[in-house]
């Protein structure tokens, strides 16, 4: 499972899973999830060395932290599809008594999740702690942390950004889902991020930009970042994505940040996505 074509096929199924989870739950966040499907697929099916038998401490593994927890559908799909828990469980998303909480949680013991997220702005700090621990434990693996671009408006993110540079957390790779959108509209209309590249740079990070909806470019950027660890500097990948990618009626619109597609919209969306790994069943 390593060619770009293979990864694209996985990402296609992941997108079906996202649509089907959110539709069946009548709630959830399809926009950011769809935009990040390529990233999650690249990380879990190619870039990260990880063990689906799941140990909380992730010793000797590359580790991933989702800070923008609302895009849980893409996280759950990739965890299930890569073997952390049964794919059928995706049908329980956001239902009562499920391990698949609206936002990722450790509370119900879902394998693959190491921290609760959902209240924005907290993930990078946690990733810093994990990076620090890996150094203490002479564990040379990498830590990835995904954040939303709107999420970067939270001050705590910048506390962590400063901390990581000061403490030379060069095993830490931040990723920003730079889709330009958030709930109330475009980042630029809500609260402009200004010169985002320059901001990370002046805070002491190495910055790269990539097209996050181009599997080949994405894999290259992630592998490059992994091979650049150990240089005394944390790295961030500013990942240009489209919210809702590639569903024609969703793409690029902040309106699909957190709305579930109805029956018709779901059929329409699924018709645009090939079923490459088999859909999980809805309970009878």
């Amino acid at each position, binding site marked *: 499972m390593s060619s770009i074509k293979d990864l694209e096929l996985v990402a296609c199924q992941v997108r079906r899973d996202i649509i089907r989870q959110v539709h069946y739950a009548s709630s959830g966040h399809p926009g950011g999830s769809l935009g990040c499907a390529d990233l999650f697929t690249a990380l879990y099916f190619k870039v990260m060395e990880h063990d689906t038998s799941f140990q909380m401490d992730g010793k000797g593994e590359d580790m991933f932290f989702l800070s923008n927890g609302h895009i849980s559908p893409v996280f759950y799909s990739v965890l299930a599809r890569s073997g952390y828990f049964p794919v059928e469980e995706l049908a329980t998303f*956001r239902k*009562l008594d499920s391990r698949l*909480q*609206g936002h990722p949680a450790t509370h119900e013991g879902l394998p693959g999740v190491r921290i609760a997220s*959902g*209240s924005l702005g907290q993930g990078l700090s946690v990733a810093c702690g994990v990076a620090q621990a890996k150094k203490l434990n002479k564990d040379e693996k990498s830590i990835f942390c995904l954040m939303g671009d709107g999420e970067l408006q939270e001050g705590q993110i910048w506390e962590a950004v400063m901390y990581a540079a000061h403490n030379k957390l060069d095993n830490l790779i931040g990723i920003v889902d730079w889709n330009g959108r958030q*709930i*109330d509209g475009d980042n630029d209309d809500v609260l402009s991020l200004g010169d985002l590249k320059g901001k990370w740079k002046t805070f002491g990070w190495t910055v790269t930009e990539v097209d996050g909806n181009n599997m080949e470019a994405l894999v290259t950027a992630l592998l490059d970042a992994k091979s650049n660890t150990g240089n005394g500097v944390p790295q961030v990948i500013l990942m240009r994505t489209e919210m809702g990618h590639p569903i024609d009626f969703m793409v690029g619109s902040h309106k699909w940040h957190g709305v579930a597609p109805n029956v018709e919209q779901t059929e329409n969306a699924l018709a645009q996505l090939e079923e490459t790994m088999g859909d999980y069943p809805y309970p009878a």
Partner: protein
Amino acid sequence: MLSDYIAKDKKSTRDGFGAGLLEVGQKNDKVVGLCADLIGSLKMNAFMDAFPERFFQMGIAEANMMGVAAGLATSGQIPYTGTFANFSTGRVFDQIRQSIAYSHKNVKICASHAGVTLGEDGATHQIMEDVGMMKMLPGMAVINPCDYNQTKAATIAIAEYDGPVYLRFGRPGWPVFMPEGEFSIGKAVHMNEGKDVSIIATGHLMWYAVEAANVLESEGISVDLINIHTIKPLDATAILASAARTGCVVTAEEHQILGGLGGSVAQLLAANNPCPIEFVGMDDSFGESGKPDQLLAKYNMDTATILAKARAVMAKK
């Protein structure tokens, strides 16, 4: 009288906030609105469209929002901040404590999606500790209205109150049963006079308390029903009078039992008129994803639980 309280239709309390904010904005040009990337969820669109120059989009930066609100209040504006209850309290507790409560700024902290009734988003968003945090702050008024009408009226009334206010409301459509336009901060609404058991409720659970009272009354049990929209300052007179009439009390709220309305009522009664009391609320647990009614039932914050506790407390007299 209990029979005056009939559910007409369902509307959310956050819709009541949105309507109230527009109206108070029309009445008082000192009122300004602030929102942290949740305009639609907080129903602040109408205010924003009517008064664009008095509305500030803060982005996803709640700590900054609280500080800016304190600054606006310092210069004589009446800021209404809007975000989810979790991000209105826990997220920004120290900013509220120092810049708003301790500094006694006239900021109205308006908090939607409180409690488990926000539903599917799950425990990360379902704050059940906010009333506790806010009521502990010296000088902070804490208001948890029960339906659309009461929330709308409260939103308008707090502009006239000089000091920080925490106004808590919720997401789901909910029965509308209170009269329009009536709200007096700190003054409980005595919804029914009775002699067998007092039920003292706040927020969404007020409706369930009405339902439970109807069942009990139909069985010949006389219920003293108190609507405590203001948890702080607490209407001690109304509560003590009720307990004196009935000799036993049930409190009901969509909040942790530890630190909520029940604790305030119990302290008041313990000091003045000890009597049997039972608490309906979250029993030291986090919530989870699900539908509002499923969650209220699973976590024992429903009509059946109020009924059971009312029977239990009467047996203790």
